């Protein structure tokens, strides 16, 4: 961790590797400053990591990076202990949160953090970059909640890019809050909803047999992407309702 230019720089890393017979170990588990990683009880041959620290940040000017990689045949699940709050900081510049996820052949990675809450006055740019090898499997959830209860949100820009076998199957950016391009809260983009989220599922078999498109309630759908991947996309009044929709969508994929 370093502090420079009015913000904190922190970089955490996880590497999961397969170990015969039937296990995954973590040769790299690097915490850094506010980004604290804890290994928890494994579930079967799956290694589990919880991100416990990011509660107090990122603040304006901070730069956080998290890297998670599942090597060939490894199974890794990453969760977080609590929601991440994007907060206003001393620095006027935006905060950045970069997530890089790599999934190798025959590996499986579940990236299931708690929501990101954009607090009034904050300014955060999130970049989530995911690479899945042709035989790899992924479940990745991201949820954004605009403001704490009854509060106006800060400015939040979040871009998610997913590649499978080197080909981009999903590239989506959501921008909201003060200073975001016009219409973000209007009937085409969020329509007044305060929670928006998605779950990407990558499985090699989706290349041959894509999931069927389906609808979960009024504002949540399951969609086959143009590649071996599917997306659950939803907007909701709050984080709790959003989670219910996304869980239901994920269950529909099976």
């Amino acid at each position, binding site marked *: 961790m370093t502090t420079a230019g009015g913000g904190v720089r922190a970089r955490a890393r996880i590497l999961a590797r397969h170990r015969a017979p039937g296990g995954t170990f973590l040769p790299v588990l690097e915490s850094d400053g506010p980004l604290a990683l804890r290994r928890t009880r494994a579930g079967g041959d799956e290694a589990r990591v919880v991100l416990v620290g990011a509660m107090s940040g990122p603040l304006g000017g901070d730069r956080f990076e998290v890297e998670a990689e599942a090597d060939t045949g490894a199974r890794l699940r990453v969760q977080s202990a609590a929601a991440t709050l994007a907060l206003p900081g001393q620095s006027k510049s935006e905060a950045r949160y970069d997530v890089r996820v790599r999934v190798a052949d025959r590996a499986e990675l579940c990236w299931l953090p708690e929501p990101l809450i954009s607090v009034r006055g904050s300014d955060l740019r999130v970049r989530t970059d995911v690479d899945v090898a042709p035989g790899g499997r992924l479940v990745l959830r991201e949820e954004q909640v605009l403001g704490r209860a009854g509060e106006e949100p800060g400015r939040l820009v979040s*871009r998610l*890019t997913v590649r499978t076998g080197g*080909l*981009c*199957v*999903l*590239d*989506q*950016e*959501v*921008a909201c809050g003060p200073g975001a*391009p*016009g*219409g*973000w809260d*209007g*009937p*085409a*983009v*969020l*329509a007044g*909803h305060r929670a*928006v989220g*998605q779950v990407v599922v990558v499985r090699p078999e989706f290349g041959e047999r894509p999931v069927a*498109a389906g*609808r979960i309630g*009024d*504002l*949540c*759908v399951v*969609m*086959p*992407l*143009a*590649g071996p991947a599917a*997306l659950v*996309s*939803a*907007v909701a009044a709050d984080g709790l309702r959003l989670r219910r929709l996304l869980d239901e969508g994920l269950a529909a994929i099976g």
Partner: protein
Amino acid sequence: MSRAALLVLADGRFPAGGHAHSGGAEEAVKAGRITGAADLEDFCRGRLHTAGLVAASLAAAAALGVPARELDAAADARTPSPALRAAARKLGRQLTRAARATWPSDELDALAREFPKGAHQPVVLGLAARAAGLGAEDAAHCAAYESVSGAATATVRLLSLDPFAATGVLARLAPEVDLVADAAVEAAGRVRGEGCGALPAAGAPVLEIGAEVHAGWAVRLFAS
């Protein structure tokens, strides 16, 4: 370059199938998210800065000569809704036909051979602009404007909205259309160096979700 060629390409009567699509307005009207001119303006503004920006950048990049295959894949990745991907290809195929008849060009012929069932419409639009002797700025303006004009026209039919009110919405959005087109051209100019990741990826979750809901209706007036 002929400025009038831009008018031909941007004309709402250019026979490329746009009249059968509402840009999500039909679903938004039924869901009660568009009830009048004020909602229509909000809807169009959101559409312009998301789907419109992406379409304009794809069109600009195609006009600059970035290979259609790469741009079409980039469009797929930026369109999670399979209903919207299908609509974009359908419109792209119709535009390919109209553009080939209007401005015969080897590039458009090659596009028709490579994508017999259609490439994403904005990619075709960029190549049509190129065939018409127009540039990336023209292609981007055309795509950005189309991203709002179709929804406005459809809403006039769906809500019997005063057509003067709908046209007023488009006129008020014009300065933002210019800004979006400029941003799109700037991004398109970086594709050669940085790849298609340089293109904007602005998404509109409610548009994508609504498109899937609309595709499931048994009875509807518009194709999308």
